[in-house]
């Protein structure tokens, strides 16, 4: 796997581990990271050995604290993908923003705030260490909280999202509250976090990669439209999977009481 200045991308078996790696800056996103992330997702997408991706932050303190305010204050900020500046498409931090349909587990290992919330808003599974906290300081530093809360509002109750956006850094949502609200699916002791993420990745790896990728894509795309149109998207996804060898193999393996042998996933 390629090396990066601000990220670590490793593969263990069929699981890729993508670590935001600026621990001295609480894994804040600088210009370099904003451009290395799309490169990392291209790598993940293209690697047929990778079935599942785990996203986490280096060090025990933070997943990410968003765009690096020091760069903004110094006037040296240069975020985003060249050629896309000034457009939403310049923000390409997450798998979803990079249209990578492999399953993503985000392991929140501490602070997760501001732009760091993109990783949670766009994740499939989210687990958190007990000390993880979630908050959105944008308005407190004179910025608009205009993307992360919109994504979050599609995956949890609305009141806590508005609360987070309006109270800025003056209040933090605990991991326990995030679990109650269904923002995260599990809370684990910090020393267990990554181990648990790998366990979940292995469990996801037991299912059909094609069925999971098609299901994931249909679920995300369904959120782009009204419910009736969403069901149309779903039906087309069901039709597209019909006749896929994994369907037959799944039924056969079940009858023969053995592990299924899935087709490798080829993404466009």
């Amino acid at each position: 796997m390629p090396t990066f200045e601000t990220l670590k991308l490793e593969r263990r078996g069929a699981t890729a581990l993508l670590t935001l790696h600026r621990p001295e800056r609480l894994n804040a996103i600088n210009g370099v990271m904003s451009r290395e992330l799309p490169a990392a997702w291209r790598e993940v997408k293209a690697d047929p050995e990778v079935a599942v991706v785990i996203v986490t932050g280096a060090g025990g303190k933070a997943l990410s604290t968003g765009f690096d305010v020091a760069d903004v204050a110094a006037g040296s900020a240069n975020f985003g993908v060249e050629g896309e500046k000034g457009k939403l498409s310049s923000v390409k931090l997450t798998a979803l923003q990079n249209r990578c349909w492999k399953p993503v587990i985000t392991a929140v290992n501490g602070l997760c705030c501001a732009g760091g919330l993109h990783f949670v808003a766009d994740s499939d599974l989210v687990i958190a260490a007990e000390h993880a906290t979630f908050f959105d300081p944008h308005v407190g530093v004179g910025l608009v909280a205009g993307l992360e809360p919109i994504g979050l509002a599609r995956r949890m109750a609305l009141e806590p999202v508005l609360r987070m956006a309006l109270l800025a850094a003056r209040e933090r949502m605990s991991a326990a509250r995030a679990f109650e609200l269904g923002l995260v699916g599990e809370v684990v002791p910090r020393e267990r976090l990554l181990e648990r993420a790998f366990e979940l990745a292995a469990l996801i790896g037991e299912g059909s990669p094609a069925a999971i990728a098609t299901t994931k894509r249909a679920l995300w795309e369904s959120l782009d439209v009204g419910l009736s149109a969403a069901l149309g998207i779903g039906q087309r996804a069901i039709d597209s999977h019909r006749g896929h060898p994994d369907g037959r193999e799944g039924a056969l393996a079940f009858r023969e009481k053995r592990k299924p042998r899935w087709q490798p996933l080829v993404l466009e």
Partner: protein
Amino acid sequence: MSYQTLRIERDEAAPHVAVLTLDRPDRMNAFDSVMRAELPRAWEELRADTTVWCVVVTGAGERAFCTGMDLREPPPPAPPPAAPSATPPRTGTAVRLTPLDCDLGKPVIAAVNGMCAGGGLVFVADADIVIASENAVFTDARTSAGQVSIAGTLRLARKIPLEAVFRLVMLGKAERWTAMRAYQLGLVSEIVPPGELLARAKAIAATICESSPSAVFWSRHAIWESLDTGLGEALEMGWDVVHGFPRAYPDAKEGARAFVEKRNPAWEYQEPPRKGERAPKA
């Protein structure tokens, strides 16, 4: 009408409530081709019956609510390929099993009496109110079996936190929710002992039937239809319903009169709205 795989029962104590039981307990109430054919007929019968104002759907026996497609049967045939012409995007689903897909138009309470797995989730996703017995389990092994998990789960993604839906569809058979987790996630609103489940579901249904059936039909209709569009447009649609209803339905006047006269209202049943119907017509 008679059915092989379903039961429809009525109870004198709750005259406007019908209970639809998925009745293949030896197969954990999975749908076979007979049930797939009978369900649309049953929903049509329940829609047409003017004495039915609310429906409870449950599974026979104490083991399972419904476990989805019966894997002992071959899958249903593929629908004919879509014409290559520039047809508008398809909406809705090809397999029509649920009250929403079959346009029942009346409130539905799902009483989850045990295992609810895979395609069985469609009844939970499409119900208005969901209650569960203490032994209920929610799981979805479809991707574990090489199948996509889309029927039911796209509507679930509008009802409960998204992370939970991804856990169900990606972890497959390894992810099982207890009734308590389903309650925490807002998927179910009450947990009751197994022996009391049906009675409680009927009691909730009877409570709903104390209100104007037409007002209930149009309220749930407006809420579900609102999910088809953005909020601004949804509120415009909602206004058309709110504004048009008292002009089209005598229940609005009767409700006010009964309230002032301190008596029970005498509601007048009217046919429920159809999917896509925008506003009550005077």
